């Protein structure tokens, strides 16, 4: 496809499948439901691992409106492995700096990636329809991944080792059976409803308006892409406003409106345009022409399902958990769900692990969801104080932040998405040797610049799709006998010229990390033998 595709207008053709005329329901080992960022990432990952995947979507279009726009470093690293990271970064707007205002005064500025030596930025902002569009195009390159548009699951039954799905199409319903079903069908998840399950938690009584605005002239003199957050600004007294930039010179303004706002009235252009003009006049001291691209009034809740696994149906992304948008923890955590689930389903289907490994998908990602919900709830309580006293303390923190560094650490305009360290996972092998805490078992691997055969490379780029033994020094002779890939920073082929890899991994010569296929640390040693690595590998595949 050319690069002038209008992803917002793109429609995908429904095609009748031979399954629809089959005498008996066709069987598929893996069915993914929902072609959003999570379902697409999961389906691509499974297909790249060699699995045959069927992806069903009830629609035939990409995301309506920009929706999730902030994609975090970790998501980009996952998408690098799926072959779409570079496209996302090229099209998206990279940023790492945020500014926080109280009234009309800047109280502080933060940098989410203050150190150099990472391939990917802290964040890119990119409209969801681009992210989905690039993922769909990648999916279409994989012959063992089939997408069926306008295929809506309307019934589900589990019996023994299979799930029977009834799928509605423009040609009427048909049945198929699946070995495993991944429900990536969004916050209103029809599959969750079909199983009689619900997502429970805290609903926030507040409304927010998103307005996507296209400016021809740069909004900032230096054309910077920064996240600006105002508490109680003069142009929107008593509420908060968030501004950030997306691709195609589109900026998003996010206004807190309060619970009493009328959502239908607020999404009308005649209401939105004067709001935006006021921000420009009072926030930027000028008037600029703009066009309104898209607007939406939303509410949110912090909630999750009790369990992400129900027999052979596994829930991932918004179907399993929901957060407030502050912190960009929705789509980003969903893509992490997908990558956690992909290698485990692959290992089970290959007979390398037992079905019980999938229980660890649920427990690890439930733990991560709790972390995301906690962060998201705390940010929401700071941004939208629920009582006079909570507003008093909030404003006192903001008032102090101007002058005192300690208070800036308390200001919470959203703790932006970082991947969870899976402490307590049954797949981890506890540290036996002394190490700094940062990259403990359960933590996601961090990037560092390397030099390979004299050319610049990156540590994460060198890791394979399976288990990897990352060795600081020459690869031990026994490693070839194990079912793992080996990446040896041996100083010959692969060199750590800046010493950043050794520093970040607290490594000395001989230090060895066992990384899972999703690049979380399974175990680490100062100088392991084959038996220790074998034990850790077993632990990471067969939790008991």
């Amino acid at each position: 496809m050319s690069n002038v595709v209008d992803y917002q207008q793109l429609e995908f053709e429904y095609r009748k499948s031979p399954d629809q005329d089959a005498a008996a329901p066709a069987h598929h080992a893996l069915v993914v439901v929902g072609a959003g960022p999570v379902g697409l990432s999961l389906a691509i990952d499974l297909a790249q691992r060699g699995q045959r995947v069927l992806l069903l979507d009830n629609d035939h279009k990409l995301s309506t409106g920009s929706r999730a726009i902030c994609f975090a470093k970790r998501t980009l690293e996952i998408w690098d492995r799926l072959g779409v990271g570079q496209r996302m970064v090229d099209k998206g707007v990279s940023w790492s700096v945020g500014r926080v205002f109280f009234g009309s005064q800047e109280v502080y500025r933060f940098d989410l990636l203050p150190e150099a030596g990472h391939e990917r930025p802290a964040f890119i902002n990119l409209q969801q329809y681009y992210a989905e569009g690039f993922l769909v195009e990648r999916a279409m390159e994989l012959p063992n991944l089939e997408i069926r548009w306008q295929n809506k699951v309307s019934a589900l039954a589990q019996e023994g080792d299979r799930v029977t799905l009834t799928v509605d199409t423009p040609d009427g319903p048909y049945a198929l059976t699946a070995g495993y079903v991944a429900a990536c069908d969004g916050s209103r998840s029809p599959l969750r409803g079909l199983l009689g399950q619900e997502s429970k938690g805290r609903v926030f009584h507040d409304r927010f308006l998103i307005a996507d605005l296209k400016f021809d002239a740069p909004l900032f003199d230096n054309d910077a892409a920064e996240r600006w957050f105002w508490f109680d600004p003069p142009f929107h007294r008593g509420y908060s406003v968030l501004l950030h930039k997306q691709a195609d010179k589109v900026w998003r303004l996010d206004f807190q409106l309060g619970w009493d706002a009328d959502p239908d009235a607020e999404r009308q252009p005649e209401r939105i345009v004067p709001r935006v003009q006021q921000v420009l006049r009072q926030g930027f001291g000028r008037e600029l022409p703009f066009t309104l691209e898209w607007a939406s009034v939303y509410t949110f809740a912090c909630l999750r399902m009790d369990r992400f696994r129900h027999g052979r149906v596994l829930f991932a992304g918004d179907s399993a958990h929901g957060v407030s948008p502050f912190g960009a923890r929705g789509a980003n955590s969903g893509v992490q769900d997908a990558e956690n689930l992909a290698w485990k389903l692959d290992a089970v289907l290959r007979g390398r692990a037992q079905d019980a490994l999938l229980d660890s998908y649920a427990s690890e990602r439930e733990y991560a969801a709790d972390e995301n919900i906690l962060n998201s709830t705390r940010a929401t309580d700071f941004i939208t104080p629920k009582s006079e006293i909570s507003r008093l303390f909030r404003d006192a923190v903001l008032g102090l932040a101007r002058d005192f560094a300690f208070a800036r650490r308390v200001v919470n305009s959203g703790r932006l998405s970082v991947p969870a360290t899976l402490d307590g996972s049954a797949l981890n092998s506890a540290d036996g040797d002394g190490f700094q805490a940062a990259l403990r078992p359960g933590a996601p691997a961090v990037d560092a610049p390397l030099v390979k055969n004299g050319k610049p490379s990156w540590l994460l780029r060198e890791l394979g799709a399976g288990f990897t033994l990352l060795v600081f020094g020459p690869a031990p002779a026994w490693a070839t006998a194990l079912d793992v890939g080996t990446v040896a920073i041996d100083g010959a082929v692969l060199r750590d010229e800046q010493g950043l890899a050794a520093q970040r991994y607290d490594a000395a010569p001989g230090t060895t990390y066992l990384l899972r296929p999703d690049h979380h640390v399974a175990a680490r040693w100062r100088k392991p033998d084959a038996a220790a690595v074998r034990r850790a590998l077993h632990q990471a595949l067969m939790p008991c």
Partner: protein
Amino acid sequence: MLITEPNLERPDDFYEALLAAHQDLTLEQSHDLNARLVLLLANHVGRLDVLQAALAAARANLNGSSR
């Protein structure tokens, strides 16, 4: 450990300074001052367990509660 035994260097001077700090403030400003004071002192203390003990001690037997 939260210190609840006498620890103030000069209790009467402190109390006078506390009231003086609120001199001429509206009730709203006094609330703001108190909130800022809590935050500054909390940062000075630093330890979460001590702060939690202080929160619990402050909340026990509040004036105006039934007991």
